[in-house]
């Protein structure tokens, strides 16, 4: 019970302090929407393409919404030593990091529905399998957050975390089948798509929103769960190795 009081308060503190601030809103909301607008302008596609674009926009909203603030909630707090206060608390490191990432996961889930609202007015969403979309959104939020966590605990400076995040995030826009099918990528880039977790999340979204997907849904979920475990495990290992000297 005592650990859960700590868990809840760490998460709420981060959400109040960081997630509802203007920089995060710009990264998490404005950027994905601007990217989508750019896609429509560049390809000259009409609104009939909106349903095909929706999985990519949802995924990019989650990706940027979750990863943009971890450099602050983790790396900055480590740098200014307030993270030490958390490490000194009688809370297990696993629960501590889940509470530090919980806010990002929730924010990512909320973010994912921002493009869904206008899409509901612009196109027909009746064929969408919401019971698959919802867990897929949650899994993408978790895996993206843990990717952000892994980056945040691998560096010591905030600017390094931000730069390193972009090193992963921007290529993922092109490589994970968000707007262009993985099969259309050059042969030498295609294998790269399959080592990126977002590919599997986006595949579920494509399948449940407009019916086109590469892998069976359960395989995608299984692989995403594997990525979550691996990223979280190595993040904790990095904290032990680099922060608890």
């Amino acid at each position, binding site marked *: 019970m005592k650990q859960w009081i700590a868990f809840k308060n760490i998460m709420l503190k981060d959400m109040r302090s960081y997630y509802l601030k203007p920089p995060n809103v710009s990264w998490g909301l404005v950027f994905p929407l601007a990217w989508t607008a750019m896609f429509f302008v560049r390809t000259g596609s009409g609104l009939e393409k909106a349903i095909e674009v929706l999985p990519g926009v949802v995924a990019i909203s989650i990706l940027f919404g979750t990863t943009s603030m971890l450099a602050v909630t983790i790396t900055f707090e480590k740098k*200014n030593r307030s993270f030490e206060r958390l*490490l000194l*608390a*009688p809370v297990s490191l696993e629960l501590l990091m889940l509470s530090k990432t919980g806010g990002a996961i929730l924010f990512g889930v909320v973010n994912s529905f921002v493009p869904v609202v206008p899409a509901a007015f612009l196109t027909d969403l009746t064929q969408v399998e919401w019971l698959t979309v919802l867990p897929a959104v949650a899994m993408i939020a978790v895996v993206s957050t843990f990717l952000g966590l892994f980056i945040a605990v691998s560096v010591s400076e905030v600017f390094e975390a931000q730069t390193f995040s972009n090193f992963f995030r921007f290529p993922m826009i092109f490589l994970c089948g968000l707007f262009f099918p993985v099969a259309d990528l050059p042969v030498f880039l295609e294998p790269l798509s399959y080592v990126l977790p977002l590919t599997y999340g986006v595949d579920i979204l494509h399948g449940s929103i407009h019916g086109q997907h590469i892998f069976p849904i359960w395989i995608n979920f299984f692989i995403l769960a594997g990525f979550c475990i691996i990223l979280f495990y190595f993040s904790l290992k990095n904290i032990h190795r680099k922060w608890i000297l």
Partner: protein
Amino acid sequence: MQASAFANKDGYSEQLITVSDLTKNFDNVKAVNKISFNVGKGELFGFLGPNGAGKTTTINMLTGLARPDSGWINIAGLNCSKNPKAAQHLIGVVPDESNLYPELTGFVNLCFCASLYGISKKERISRAEQLLADFNLEKAGNRKFNTYSKGMKRKLTIAAGIIHRPPILFLDEPTTGIDVASARHIRGLISKLFNEGTTIFLTTHYIEEAERLCERIAFIVNGHIVKNDTVANLIQPIKNLKTLLITYTNLAGNPEEKLNKAFPEFEFLQESNNQIKVHSEKTISIGPVIRFFEEQGAEVTEARQLNPSLEEIFVEVTGIEADAMKNEKNDGKL
């Protein structure tokens, strides 16, 4: 000082912290080298040494922020070498630099710190309000932490360290870099906590502070504990030594040698250009010394008796001048 039940060699019936052969290396530097000590329940134990001596590294190992390379830590019967988090519910830590959240108010910072220890909301609010009052920070409670002065920051950091009422408190250089009034207030708060029964492990590089606050002190230099004893025992060798500090004017050169020849029963040591110290086991008769200065054409402006202090012992044991330690962090306010 609080009366203690002397039951063993350290004077405490129950050891709350036991450290044995603790070692920590950073690359090729031995930050802490096989140190061993005990801290009794209800004791105020001082760790005195210059910067880089290994004080903070020791605290970090004891509190779970650093892993020892070897050695053994036991806090309240819990093996913290194996599980550094085992005793974290029993300890409060006040680091050498404030580590609260700059964007949160003082009050919210305290409530948040209390929540980390699983304290209920109602109790968190009550304790935070009480601590703000105790630390004279009531008016600043709703101000963001980053608007606080250094002294206020340090006070709030101490308040955050004790909000869960820990029986053991680690204080790392609690008065470094803050103004005289705040330092005095903080020393008062430390004494109050000690008198209320909190076991305190205090690191400092201020000899006077250690002597004034602590019951027992360990001198740490280059990662080694070179002396560990009660303040009374440490001062014992110089307890009967009488010391006078003479200030004079109008005398060129160093009179030390002439004075030592003229008064072989005393020991004279030049302190500065116009000050000389006189040591003796017997009562020092000042008249003949003043006359000596007058015969040299000088004038004695002040002759002040100094009480035996830990400083002399520290200098003798460690070879480190006390002034050098005071100036290390560019303040030395006491």
